[in-house]
């Protein structure tokens, strides 16, 4: 939540810029946005109509670059570096941060080996420094570094931009959760009704016994 608040202004700034720029100046804007240290969301900028005018022109690699930062990972970049502009240090760092978010989307426990492979990091010390300084201090993840089990336990990870196909999955998950909650409420109400009925039956039973005792006493 707070990461979203932090980057809201930055997004607005770049969206306003993108709306008035064209051609190569848009490329400069893309480089600026993908280098900004506190920006981790790009779908708003991507949805500005001017950006799609880059499609099919000599600048379309910058549009691909923006898509890469919105949805892709460092590994993907390495596999397609020839079709994409070269990255400066800030962009490399950001893409690796975004890769951690993508990894955290599927697992809560991120093994060091997987992280080191995905982020091209050669030793544990460097990996832990990256997680602490570039991810936790940046506020994009919260978690626990478990040196004994050589893994990073994610407690919170900021959301990345959603690819269109993810939306249905999210709606499905929320609907699923809603029906689970509804069923739970119904079963709690049934249990309460059951307890009331049992209580009533117990009270009747007790009354019958007391009546019987009275009868026996009289007789």
């Amino acid at each position, binding site marked *: *939540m707070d990461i*979203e608040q932090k980057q*809201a202004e930055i*997004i607005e700034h770049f969206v306003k810029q993108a709306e008035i720029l064209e051609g190569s100046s848009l490329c400069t804007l893309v480089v600026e946005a993908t280098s900004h240290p506190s920006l981790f*969301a790009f*779908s*708003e900028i991507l*949805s500005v109509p001017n950006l799609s005018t880059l499609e099919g022109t000599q600048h379309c690699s910058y549009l691909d670059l923006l898509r890469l930062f919105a949805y892709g990972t460092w590994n993907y970049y390495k596999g397609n570096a020839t079709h994409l502009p070269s990255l400066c240090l800030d962009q490399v760092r950001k893409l690796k941060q975004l890769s951690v978010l993508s990894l*955290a*989307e599927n697992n809560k426990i991120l093994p060091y080996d997987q992280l080191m492979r995905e982020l091209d990091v050669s030793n544990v010390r460097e990996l832990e420094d990256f997680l602490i300084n570039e991810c936790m201090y940046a506020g994009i993840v919260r978690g626990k570094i478990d040196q004994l089990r050589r893994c990073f336990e994610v*407690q*919170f*990870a*900021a*959301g*990345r*931009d*959603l690819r269109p196909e*993810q*939306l249905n999955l*999210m709606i499905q*998950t*929320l609907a699923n*959760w809603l029906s689970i909650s509804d069923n739970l409420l119904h079963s709690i109400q049934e249990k309460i009704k059951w307890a009331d009925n049992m209580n009533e039956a117990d009270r009747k039973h007790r009354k019958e016994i007391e009546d019987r005792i009275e009868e026996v006493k009289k007789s």
Partner: protein
Amino acid sequence: ENSLLRQVSSFLRRLPAIESEKFQDDFLMEINDTLLMSYLAMFTNC
């Protein structure tokens, strides 16, 4: 709204809140303990 979508996606990713062998074992242990307690209480009543 993209920002809201990102927040919902980040939130959903925290579910299930906890899932591990140890949690299940502890959970079943608690259920057994409670069953034993209610059994003892029923005995005491009888």
